[in-house]
């Protein structure tokens, strides 16, 4: 992994990302380690994402590294028409690693091809966001004690949800059973289902999640966004259907955990937050440990 960019979850083998998870567990026990003394890291956010940027920057600071960069393209020379290539070439002269988010799909892959320093993709449009996938895996393993043979209930927008697609790909290595629950307009794309068919992985599709709650080890919630619907009437019909409420969770296993990539809108009622089954805020904290592990292993410091 040393000096290798992380653009897509498929860039790493199963062994490699399990090693990241092990390393993240070390950082959880001992988050402040001065491994990045004299290292300078760029966080280039061509589109704003405060949550992801703060998580990465916390990871760098906890490791004792320093940061340059920008939080959105309007505060950078990008608005003056500078190409991505020129920005990457320039910044590469200054830093040891680039962490970047960009609205165009493939931007991070392209950046990794034109520079010799490692690039970490913090999201390229609707394409990839590998550190999110790794922190999801970390959260699942930590709460269930294993990754193998779990029942994963995915609820909401399964068509455009980048995080559920990447998680599906990564979990496919661990013999899961998937339950895909979505309105018919937002079903899991057939390409992913074909992939599961080929690997002999079981999955169930439905529009109603209630019957499947007792089976779930992990409930992965996503936002159902209005702009995804061609017919606004369809949105009005489903917007309050894919909502978890505390009263619904009694039928669940005691060990079930609810995950969400955040930010949420109304798909998880605030009355769930105090339930020990709610895990989304801890999940976000796990993101810092996982990002520490990614940075340290790419820079060869662990």
């Amino acid at each position: 992994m040393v000096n290798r960019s992380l653009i897509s979850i498929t860039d790493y083998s199963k062994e490699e990302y399990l090693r990241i998870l092990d390393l993240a567990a070390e950082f959880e026990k001992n988050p402040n380690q001065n491994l990045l003394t004299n290292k300078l890291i760029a966080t280039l956010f061509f589109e704003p994402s405060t949550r992801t940027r703060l998580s990465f920057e916390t990871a760098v600071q906890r490791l004792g590294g320093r940061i340059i960069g920008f939080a959105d393209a309007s505060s950078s020379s990008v608005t003056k028409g500078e190409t991505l290539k020129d920005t990457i070439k320039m910044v590469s002269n200054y830093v040891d690693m680039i962490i970047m988010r960009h609205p165009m799909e493939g931007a991070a892959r392209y950046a990794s091809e034109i520079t010799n320093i490692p690039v970490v993709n913090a999201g390229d449009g609707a394409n990839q966001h590998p550190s999110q996938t790794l922190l999801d895996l970390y959260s699942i393993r930590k709460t269930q004690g294993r990754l193998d043979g779990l029942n994963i209930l995915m609820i909401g927008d399964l068509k455009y949800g980048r995080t559920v697609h990447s998680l599906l790909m990564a979990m496919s290595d661990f013999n899961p059973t998937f339950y895909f629950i979505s309105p018919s307009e937002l079903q899991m794309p057939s390409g992913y289902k074909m992939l599961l068919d080929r690997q002999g992985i079981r999955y169930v599709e439905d529009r109603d999640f209630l019957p499947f709650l007792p089976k779930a080890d992990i409930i992965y919630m996503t936002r159902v966004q209005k702009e995804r619907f061609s017919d606004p009437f369809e949105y009005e019909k489903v917007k309050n259907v894919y909502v978890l409420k505390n009263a619904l969770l009694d039928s669940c296993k005691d060990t079930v955990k609810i995950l969400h990539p955040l930010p949420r809108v109304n798909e998880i009622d605030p009355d769930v937050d105090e339930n020990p089954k709610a895990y989304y805020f801890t999940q976000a904290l796990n993101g810092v440990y996982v990002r520490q592990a990614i940075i340290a292993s790419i820079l060869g410091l662990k």
Partner: protein
Amino acid sequence: MKGDDKHLVVNAIENGTVIDHIPSTSLFAVISILQLEKLNSQMTFGVNLESKKLGSKAIIKVAGKYFENSELNKIALVAPQAKLNIIRNYQVVEKRVVEIPEDEISGIIKCPNPVCITNHEKITTKFHVLSRSDMTVRCNYCEKVINRTQIEIL
């Protein structure tokens, strides 16, 4: 040629290449992939010709020109059944079929994804061949998977 002659008559070439069994709709794509517009050779194009196999086919004859296999294989994307006749001294000395490039296709296909970075910066496109039988490829950048019907030539 007499007016009552219903057959298309194209003169045989002495030396050069004949590319037959091109789908009619792909003629201009083949011309552009092989950059024929840059050649000074004598060329004959036939299009919307009857074909049992394709329904409607096109044919290209280029005098005095032999192509590299790597060049010719690029047309497999739009004319997978194309047949090539290499002509020397009015004789067909070699017949060839085109082959879809093995693993990677550089700079021929345009990515159909409007938010792909290759449509916003000057980048040579690159596609990984996933399946040669139904011509499924994946963009190296945005990772979208597309098949033959969605392939657009740059």
